[in-house]
C-alpha cells in the first residue's frame, strides 16, 4: 500500500490535470461566441475560489461547534460527584489549568487517579478519583500527584495528607451502616472479586496490598475508622511514632470515630461520626462492606467554596 504511494500519485495528479484541462477546453468551446461576457462574469477560478471560501466558512462553523459541545457534559455525568486528586484547586480553575497529561495517574501507588472521558465535556482528560472503586489512601505519604502536576491544578501549597481537602465524608445511608445496626463484620470487606488496594503499615509500609487479601473480623463494624489514613496517623502521633519519622505529618484533629449515639426515641447504638480532620480521601467509602457505601465523600458542596476556604478546616462536626 505504502510502497506504491509515489507511483499512484503521479497518474492521479496528471489525471486531475487532464480533467481540468478538459473542462477548460469545454468551457472555451461553449463560450467561444460570447467571450466578452465570460471575461466580465465570474471565471472558473473565481467561482472555485468562492466555493472554497464558503466551504471554509462551513468548516469553521462545524469544527467550532463540535469544540463547543464540551460545554454540555452528558446529564448523568454532570451530576456524578467527582473527587479530584489531593490538592485540586476549585473545579472551574482546575478545568482551566489541567493540561491533561496524566502524570498524577502515573505516580499514584494505588492507581486511584483516573482520567475523565468525552462524556464529561471539557473534563475530558482531567484526573478524578472514584473512591468506591479505589480511594486515595495516602500510601505515598508525600503527595506524589501534587508533586507530579506540572501546571498547579493540584496546588503545590500542601505537603502532607492532613493538609488536603478533597471532600468531606458523610454518613448518607445510616440504615445500611453495620455499626448502626449493631452488627459486626467478618471476611473480605468488599468480597473476593474486589481489586482495590490499601496499605497496611503493619504488613508492608511500602507496598499496598489487595483489600481482599486482608480479611477482617470485628464485633462491631468499625472498618471506616480503622482504615482512615488520618485516624491512623493521629494514633501514631499520640504514641509518639511519627509517620515517616516526620512530626509535620501529624494531623491536628481526628477525622472519624465510632460513638455511642442516643436517638430521640431512646435507642442507643454505635455510629461513625466524621470530625473536622476529615480530608475526604474516600477510604471509608471504599472499605464500607455494605452493599452500597453507607458513608460517602461529599464533593459538590465543597467545590462551591473558594480555594482558601477549601483548605481551611471548617469548625463544627458533620454526621
Amino acid at each position, binding site marked *: *500500500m*505504502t*510502497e506504491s*504511494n*509515489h*507511483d*499512484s*500519485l*503521479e*497518474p*492521479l*495528479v496528471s*489525471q486531475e490535470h487532464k480533467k481540468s484541462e478538459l473542462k477548460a477546453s469545454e468551457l472555451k468551446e461553449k463560450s467561444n461566441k460570447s467571450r466578452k461576457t465570460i471575461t466580465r462574469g465570474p471565471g472558473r477560478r473565481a467561482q472555485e475560489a468562492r466555493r*472554497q*471560501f464558503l*466551504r*471554509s466558512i462551513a*468548516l*469553521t462553523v462545524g*469544527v*467550532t461547534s*463540535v*469544540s*463547543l*459541545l*464540551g*460545554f454540555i457534559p452528558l446529564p448523568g455525568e454532570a451530576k456524578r460527584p467527582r473527587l479530584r486528586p489531593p490538592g485540586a484547586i476549585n473545579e*472551574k*480553575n482546575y*478545568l*482551566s*489549568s*489541567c*493540561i*491533561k*497529561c*496524566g*502524570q498524577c*495517574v*502515573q*505516580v499514584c501507588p494505588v492507581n486511584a487517579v483516573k*482520567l475523565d*472521558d*468525552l*462524556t464529561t*465535556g*471539557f473534563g*475530558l*482528560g482531567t484526573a478524578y478519583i472514584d473512591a468506591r472503586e479505589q480511594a486515595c489512601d495516602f500510601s505515598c505519604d508525600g503527595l506524589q500527584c501534587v508533586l*507530579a*502536576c*506540572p*501546571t*498547579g491544578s493540584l496546588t*503545590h501549597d500542601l505537603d502532607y495528607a492532613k493538609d488536603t481537602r478533597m471532600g468531606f465524608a458523610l454518613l448518607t445511608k445510616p440504615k445500611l451502616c453495620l455499626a448502626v445496626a449493631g452488627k459486626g463484620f467478618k471476611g473480605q470487606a468488599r468480597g473476593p472479586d474486589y481489586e482495590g488496594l490499601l496499605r497496611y503499615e503493619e504488613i508492608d509500609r511500602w507496598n499496598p496490598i489487595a483489600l481482599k487479601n486482608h480479611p477482617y473480623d470485628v464485633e462491631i463494624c468499625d472498618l471506616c475508622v480503622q482504615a482512615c489514613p488520618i485516624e491512623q496517623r493521629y494514633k501514631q502521633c499520640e504514641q509518639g511514632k511519627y509517620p515517616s519519622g516526620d512530626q509535620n505529618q501529624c494531623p491536628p484533629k481526628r477525622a472519624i470515630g465510632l460513638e455511642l449515639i442516643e436517638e430521640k426515641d431512646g435507642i442507643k447504638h454505635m455510629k461513625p461520626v466524621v470530625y473536622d480532620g476529615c480530608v475526604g480521601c474516600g477510604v471509608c467509602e471504599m472499605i464500607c462492606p455494605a452493599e452500597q457505601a453507607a458513608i460517602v465523600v461529599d464533593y459538590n458542596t465543597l467545590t462551591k467554596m473558594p480555594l482558601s476556604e477549601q483548605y481551611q478546616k471548617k469548625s463544627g462536626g458533620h454526621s
Partner: protein
Amino acid sequence: MNRALESLAQLFGRAPRKPRKDEISPDAQKIYFYKKGEKVTKAQLVALHEDHHKNSKNKWRKRRWITLITINLLFVVSFSLDIQLLEGALTASRFVGFHMADLNSALQVMLAYKQALINLLIGIVTVFIMWFILGGRTFCSWVCPYHLLAEWTESVHLWLAQRGLAKNYTFHRGVRTVFYVIFALLAVLSGYTVFEFISPTGILSRAIIYGPTLALFWVVFLLLFETFLSRRAWCRYICPIGITYGIVGVFSPLRVSYDLTDCKHEGDCRSVCLVPHVLELTIKNRSTDIENGIGADCTRCGLCVDACPTNSLNFEFKGLTHKPQTQNKWLIPEALDTLEAKAQKSPGDKETKDD
C-alpha cells in the same frame, strides 16, 4: 528577514507568489536559461522516476515512522513498567525527571487559566529550545500520533480518489489561522482549554498510554472525513498545533533545502507533500536562488526528499551540513559553452509544461 516574513505569511495561509524577474538572482536566471536549452522529454522523466524508485527505499519515511512509534512507545513503557523515563503524555511530560510541555497545550492552559507556574514555564522553555533547534513542525510528522494515522488513511484516500470513490474538497489555508484565533479567544473567554476537547493529538496520546476512551470516535470521524472528503484536512486546515510549532521553527537551522540545479520541475515532491505550498518554489521560475530553505510550514517529514528523483531536496542543518559547491554543472564554463550552442540551435524551444 523578508524570507522569514514570507514564510510566516504562508504559514498563516497566504498563497506563494511568483517572483518578479528582477527578484531572481543572476545565477538562478542562468540556470533557468540553460534549462530551456535542455529539453526533458516525458519518457526521460518516467525513466528517471522509475530508476530513482527502484533504489529508493523510503529512507526518511522509515526513519520517521520508527522515531514516531518509539517516542509514543516510550510513554507507554514508562507507565506500564513504572520507569521514570518519559512520564505523562504528549501534552506535558517529564523526560528523566525534566519537565516538558507541549507548546500549544501550555499556551491553551495559560490563556484559560491566566497563570503559569514555574514547572510549566520550565517545560515550555525546554520544549521551545528543542523544537527551535529541530525545526518546529518536526513535532507534527516525527512525534504526533495523529499524523501517522492520517498518513495511512491518506494512502487509502489516494487509492479511493484514483477510482473516483473519494473526493478531495479543499479549503482556504487561511482557515487554520482563523481556527487559531478562535481557539485562543475561546480559551480566554470561557476559561476552558476548548481546543484540548477536540485535539486528536492529546486524545490519541492519552488513549495509547492510559487506554481507549470514547473520545477516539472523534478521531475516527476525522480520519473518515479525510479519507472520503478532504485529503489531510485536519493537519492542513485546522490544527493550531501546526501553527504554534510553525512559528517556533521559522528560524530553525534544521530544514529541507532545495537545490535548483538538477531539478526537473516534474512535481513529484509536491504530489506527496502534506503542505505543498511550501514546495511551490520547485516550480520552474519560482525559486529566486540556487539554494533555498523550505518555509516554516514544512513538517520536515522527508517525503519530498525520498520522492525527489534528482536529489534536489535534502535535509540541511545550517552550519553543520556542508555541500560541496563545485558540482554545479551549469556554472562550469565548458558546460555552458556546449549548452549555449545547443540553445542557439533550437531557439523556438519553449517549455510550457510547468506554469
